[in-house]
């Protein structure tokens, strides 16, 4: 017989009394409708309501950039955005970055080639941030300092950034963004 058993006749509620709202957004080219608590932030929505756990949460105060996603093409901190604010928006997360056949994108491959990641926790946010620069049409400054500036919205605690700088340059040159 087991020493530990759950308390019997435990009443576990299935919801709080938070106000809710039905929202719809297009995430990675798929329409999603959910009824969510109005105070749920977008990162929690993407991760736990939609199940796209590639977006990570590092600080929940908008400094580390781990939760960066593209909202209508712009990089945003999904921890500082309420899910209801994204109602009707078009979202892209890290799960949309690879080619549909599963092959890494040029940018992702450059990270792998250059050892631009270690624990991989900041990486999805870092990549989405770089993606926004790549897609902006701006001419990128591919000097070390230019790339440092480009990725300065994301904290990484493992790599010391040097190999991320290399990866960004490799991908940008390969894609003709220089």
């Amino acid at each position, binding site marked *: 017989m087991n020493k530990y058993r759950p308390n019997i006749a435990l009443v576990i509620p299935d919801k709080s*009394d938070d106000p809710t709202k039905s929202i719809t957004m297009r995430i990675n080219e798929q329409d999603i409708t959910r009824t969510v608590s109005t105070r749920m932030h977008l990162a929690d929505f993407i991760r736990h309501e939609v199940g796209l756990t590639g977006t990570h949460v590092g600080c929940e105060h908008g400094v580390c950039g781990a939760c960066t996603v593209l909202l209508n093409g712009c990089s945003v901190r999904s921890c500082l955005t309420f899910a209801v604010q994204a109602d009707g928006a078009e979202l892209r997360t890290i799960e949309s970055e690879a080619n549909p056949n599963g092959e890494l994108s040029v940018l992702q491959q450059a990270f792998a080639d250059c050892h631009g990641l*270690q624990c991989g*926790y900041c990486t999805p946010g870092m990549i989405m941030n770089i993606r926004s620069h790549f897609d902006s049409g701006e001419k990128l400054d591919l000097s070390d300092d230019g790339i*440092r500036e480009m990725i300065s919205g994301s904290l990484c605690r493992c790599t010391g950034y040097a190999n991320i700088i290399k990866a960004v340059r490799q991908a940008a040159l390969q894609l003709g963004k220089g």
Partner: protein
Amino acid sequence: MSTRQFGERVTRNNDPQLLKGEGSFTDDIPLPGALHAAFVRSPYARAKILEVDVSEARDLDGIVAVYTCDDIGHLDQELPLLIPHDCMTDPRTARPLARDDVYYVGQPVVMIVAIDRYVAEDAVQLVDIDYDPLEVEMDIEEAVKDGAPLVHHHPNNIAADFTQISGDPETAFAEAEHVTRITVQVDRSTASPMEARTVAAHFDHISGQLTVWDGTQAPLGVRGGLASLFELDEDKVRVIAPDVGGGFGQKIMFPHSDEVLVPLAAMTLGRPVKFIEDRRENFIGSNQERTQIHHMELYAKKTGEIIALRDNFLHDTGAFIPYGIAVAQVASTSIAGPYRIPNIEVSFKAVYTPAVPVTPYRGCGRPHACFAIERAVDQLADDLGMDRMEIRRINLISDDEFPYERDGLIFADGLKVIQDSGQYLKALEMVRTEIGWDDFEAKQKIAQSEGRYLGIGLGFYVEGTGLGPYEGGHIKIHPITGKVYVNTGLTGQGQGHETVFAQIVSDQLGVAVKDVILVEGDTGTFEWGVATFASRAAVCSGNAIHKTAIKVRKKVIEAAANMMEADISQVDLEDGHAFVKGTNRKVALSTVATASNPLRYAFNEAAKAATQFAPASRHDGPALFEGQHPGLEDTDFFSPECATWAYGVHAAIVEIDPITCQVNFHKYVTIHDCGNMINPTIVEGQVLGGFAQGIAGALYEHIDFDEDGNPTNASFVDFLIPYATEIPSLEIHHLQTPAPGNPLGIKGVGEAGCIAVGTTVASGIEDALKHVTDRTFRHVPITPSMIQEAIVLGST
């Protein structure tokens, strides 16, 4: 034979998964119906708890359970002292939830479990606790004195008092012709892994199986702790460290309160429960490291030869000392650095302060020791009018003196301090050339004539790595796919174990690196070993896996030789096959693995040949002969005789902006030696990451408390973790002196990068400003205000 993978710059096995957002971090693991924990934490550094009222919190919609220390049964006890040592008197550890007293801002007092984290945090606000705040002393130099406000009910705040002696320091002190005395300080900091700490638990009350997903560096330790606290058979507790978003030492400590209480809640509530620490909690609730104040004395001859060292230091251990004296012991045994110094007296007092407890953070005492000895050696050079390079050249242990034992000193593994191998003098010469030491003086003169502050810094470090007691390796060749599954007990937090261990196995078994699958940090898969700390994974698990791979290779060759009717000397392994040399006869490893397992059922083509009915099967006697193990599988272990010592030297040219007092780096070079490198790219990644944390500690990061013990910068806004814009380029040059004490000849590298940065930067800043100020730089981090003050102070 295939190209040797050891030493190659192989790209990482697990990167595609992480890059696609398909990692499996604790909070990514689907646990349907999971409940969420949040903690009520002490707002006072030291206080009596007068009353705890949780009634309003309990009544909130969505709240499932509220736990105070009265609600956790026998778990209401002081948690284990993980590393005992005789020099501690009445060592104190924390209870899972505070009872009667709180000892630091952030200490857990009440745990709330709710249907989601939002509601749980609402309830945290509704708990009403009446405290009686007590007087505190945050300054360790004051806290160590008699009469200081006490953290615990002891005569004073001294948690440990320990002296170690090597050689005959008393005699050497008397023989010295010159004494240099300095005081240095390293401030409190925190590891700040990008993923904060995490724990999730599921209890199956039918089977009695407790499964815990824990973002830890020590899943086997956590399992031992949980099995002990809950009085369960270890087989009934499975601890899995899934993908972990960085550790840097913070996650070696266990059990934090949540690691005990989340399983408890899962067991009593019959639902999965998770606690995902937020960033503020990581700052106020997860262990930290670093504050030490060293009083260092170097006793020398006029020639510059250092004949003795005396170092007394204070070590801040925070409110509790659960990890014993490990950090201080590493500092005290690394104190002579790379130098011969035959006579040493080193002593420390570990001091309780009402702050987050101190346990290792990357470097674990080594950056402190390096800062003390290197700053002292710089001062000695200055005192004797010698060049900083020259004084080091005179005192470095030379190649023919290895192994160099520091008789009388005991390292953090309980074993002797023996610096096993190295080419210290060559490393110094290399850095002299690479940084341009000999040309620098002329450049500096020109810069000074232009009113610029240009300086050169130098720092040498050693790192005892690869500590025991042991690690293991288990290897199995998969009979269906031919893939090679490898297990070890410790676990990774991004270091690249999946790749470097695969390279080691690939060399023995002739399979592609990508076909070697590492499953580590899961006590349900492999349950022998220790943990990831002290730059030991490559040395301990790497060599264990290497030894295991040799055994499995032998089995494969014997079985394949039998199948191909060849002599074993004629069989080799390549491209996932065994083949007879000089012929086209070959057999896939999957087939060999299948054939090595007598079967009844023919579930695939290869299996047909392995069933007991197949013509080639043995039809006389048992299918397995006595002592034979089915399949291609084995286990072995590696236990080092003692630590193996890596080392390196840093040099930097810095320029200080006279207006902003910002430190700009013109060049930063490191010469680094961690023995044979399994994968130079991964080694460089470790060095670069450590270097960034070193820059952080040298110029930016420290935990700031007000006089009442409140942390005042507990967020990423105020605690200045460097972005890419703050980290200079680093030039890395390798030396490879094989470690003599392990089959692969490797030394650890995890902590190397950070150790010498503080002293190198301080040395450079001091050199840049020496013509305008007498002020020395012996306290890190060095802020622009400190530099500005030095410039304003000027020369006396």
